[in-house]
């Protein structure tokens, strides 16, 4: 078995970037190892695109440091700011940025021509790249005559044809329709694996991030909320924001009942007196607790379940049929919970039911 040592390829340290006079990025730090795809995820305005552009060299930060392969390309302290064209990175833009006055071939060949490649090499590499994105037969087409999806592929080919070591993606799929987006997602991921390029990817689409990334950085208001693998982000959100942003979840607040602790689980008592057992996962435990329960982890059954730690009676408020799943609004004590169930037999409003949830799925949130 080969152990590949993953060394950091890109390091971002305490980065601060202003947009005009507004601070858009307020102290962001993360690193990307060779060959991994790191996604910056967050709502619009959280600073993810600005961070990406700062790495690219298209925005000038105020403070912090950016290193590529250990060498600083930007450092406020050392007064270094290498221009974008000299950083050796590559980028795919949200608007594709296809040059309308050139053919598809010329678009893709641009980066090679800049690097003074000879005609044979250019022809070779461009054809290879176009092949990879299945756009070979459009090589001589005027670039402005392509559809959105086609332009996206050309943009991609153009970005990797000169074999950069890093690819930056700025919401590349957000202008495509849902079906195409889903297909392109898979293609992009496969391409990235095949070429082994380190990628930094920006998106606001949760599904995209979870499907494509090795690791995710969740951002809000210019700062990092949580960094981790998709599983970690999803299963172990550290804050209410992450819990609710990365998939829907219910937040349950209450008092810590140390006296009821058992089997490594901690007990929370809601204001209306219900007790729910959850897992701390190493987070600090105080007197007041917030726990997160994903909507998909709440189970509903008409009969009282046997042998469950977390089981309570509740009442159905309403159900919303949504095709593959059904959203059920439940009244639990004096709190409304939302459950998402697949293949659900509809229940009338007002029906008395029982809800259960595995304590391992009840996650204690950090401070």
């Amino acid at each position, binding site marked *: 078995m080969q152990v590949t040592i993953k060394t950091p390829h890109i390091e971002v340290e305490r980065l601060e970037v202003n947009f005009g006079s507004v601070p858009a990025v307020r102290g962001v730090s993360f690193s990307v190892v060779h060959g991994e795809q790191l996604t910056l995820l967050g709502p619009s305005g959280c600073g993810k695109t600005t961070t990406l552009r700062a790495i*690219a*060299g*298209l*925005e*000038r930060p105020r403070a912090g440091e950016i290193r590529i392969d250990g060498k600083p390309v930007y450092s406020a302290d050392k*007064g*270094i*700011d*290498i*221009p*974008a*064209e*000299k950083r*050796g*990175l*590559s*980028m795919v*833009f*949200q*608007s594709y*940025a296809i*040059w*309308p*006055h050139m053919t598809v071939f010329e678009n893709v060949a*641009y*980066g090679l021509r*800049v*690097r003074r490649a000879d005609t044979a090499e250019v022809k070779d590499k461009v054809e290879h790249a176009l092949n990879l994105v299945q756009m070979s037969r459009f090589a001589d087409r005027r670039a402005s005559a392509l559809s959105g999806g086609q332009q996206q592929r050309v943009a991609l080919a*153009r*970005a990797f044809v*000169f074999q950069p070591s890093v690819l*930056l993606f700025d919401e590349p799929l957000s202008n495509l329709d849902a079906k195409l987006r889903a297909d392109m997602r898979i293609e992009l991921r496969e391409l990235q694996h095949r070429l082994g390029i380190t990628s930094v990817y920006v998106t606001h689409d949760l599904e995209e991030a979870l499907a494509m990334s090795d690791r995710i950085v969740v951002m809000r208001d210019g700062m990092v909320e949580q960094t981790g693998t998709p599983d970690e982000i999803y299963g172990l959100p550290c804050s209410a924001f992450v819990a609710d942003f990365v998939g829907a979840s219910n937040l349950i607040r209450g008092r810590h009942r140390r006296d009821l602790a058992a089997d490594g689980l901690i007990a929370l008592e809601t204001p209306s007196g219900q007790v729910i057992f959850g897992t701390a996962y190493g987070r600090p435990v105080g007197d007041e607790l917030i726990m997160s329960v994903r909507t998909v982890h709440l189970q509903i059954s008409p009969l009282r379940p046997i042998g469950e730690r977390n089981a309570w009676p509740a009442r159905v408020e309403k159900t919303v049929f949504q095709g593959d799943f059904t959203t059920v609004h439940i009244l639990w004590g004096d709190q409304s919970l939302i459950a998402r169930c697949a293949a659900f037999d509809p229940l009338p409003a007002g029906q008395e039911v029982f809800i259960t949830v595995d304590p391992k799925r009840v996650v204690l949130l950090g401070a």
Partner: protein
Amino acid sequence: MSVAGASAGRVSPQAIAGYGVAAVAAVLVLYPVFYLLQAAFDVGDPQIRPPTSYGVDNFEALFNYPQIMLNTLVVSVAATVMALVIGFVMAWILARTNVPGRRAFEQLMVVPYYLTPLLGALAWSMLGSPESGFINQVWRALGATGSLMDINTPYGIAWVMALFEGSVAFVMIAAVMKSMDPSLEEASQVIGASRLRTMLRITLPLVVPGVLGAAVFVFAEMLGSFAVALVLGTPNRYYVITTAIYQLIQQYPPRVQVAAAMGVSLFAVMFLMLFVYRRIITAGSYATITGKAFRPRVADVGRLRYVLFGLCMLYLTVAVFLPIATLLYASVQKIAVAFPAADNFTLNNFTAAMSMNAVRSALTNSLILGFATATIGVVLMGLLAWLIYRSKLPGSGLIEYVVMFPQAVPRLVFAFGMMWAWLVFPILIYGTMWLLLIAYLTVFLPLGVRTIAGVMLQIDKSLEECAQMCGASWAYRTRTVSVPLLVPGLLAAWLLLFIASVRELGASILLMGPHSKVITPSIVESWFGTASELTATLALIQTMVVAAAMIVMMMVTRRLGALPVD
């Protein structure tokens, strides 16, 4: 195209190009203004330069001419109102109804402005003079007495100004209408409001702020208007500030200081107006310049559209066809009357015009200057547009003010400052074509920069950034990406500058020298010094040159959308 990449201590080539061109612009604009201000505050002996003493006496002297201030106000307000009405109606018809031939009309709407307002004034003078005007002659032939109209009145002047300089209003209001989201109106109609009610309660309030901005801008333009008041007002001793300044300078002895004070006052007011205009435009939450361009809902007006078509044709007739026809009619007569006898026709005027050395050299000079201004201008203004709107060099905002400054100063006043500024310049520029070239480049800065910037901003920043990410240096990506994309826009700007310089009057009339006569002021000189038939001929010749350039421009810009108007 950020310059976020210059390592500390090393000045990028962008910075050098940028600041270099900014310095040129600053000198062009500020050097004459200094002299203008100096003259305005000079209370010593006017013959002695540099001034011996300074004071505000000249400004106090302005209070001796309340009539002129009043005249200027009356004419400008009347012209603005008329221009807004015409502009609004035309914009509505062309943007919101399904009148046939919309696209053609839109292009044609700016023709009156490019045909010199001077030409319009000359033609309407021939049409509307109480005694000799053709319209009045026809009126009397129909049996009436007296005259139907007297064009040499304030309202006559305002009418001609509105017709020919009012295209600005149309362009701006049309732009406002195009940037209005049609779904706002649809929402009103869905609820059940009638079309009229929708227009009054929804459309009008949305459009009003933009129209207000246009009103302020147009008013500023009218304040600085010269040609029309010169031709139509001067004979009746009806002066506005610009023509008064001209008269004061031409008098013997020239009352330069008072003229300068008038000029400074005028430009202070215009500056204020433009400041207000910018406030209105940038304050609103109705994005007129940025943001998506909507396709406004075009209403089907049924039979009414033929009436509207007639209305559009009426405007074009009154503003384009009638004046040109009038000039043509006058130019082929010995003494121009509405009902000439058969022996009154002659081609002598044309032969005389073309044989006059003065005319030939004036035309040649105008063409040469046009080429030079356009070519140098495109490069200079292109760089300035890049500097202001694309580079992130510090101080670019300030440069924008400097570049837009000439907008606030009437051409005549600016030329006045230039006259003094370049008279004392050690290198011989005064009295030569170089002076005119410098003058044109200066006064056209706002026009050129705005046009090129408009095109530049249409090009998504990401196209250039992408080239950067592919490793291209500034020079390489400017050459391979920016310039090719800009070419159609640069071409349009070139033609625009060419036309503007051929038809320029206010600055040229003061700065011409014996070896540097140009055509449009020559037409004015002809008006004041020769028979009106000959003047009509000269005006026609100049029109043909401008028309040729315009046709070329229309063909080029058909893809780019509406023509800009300054």
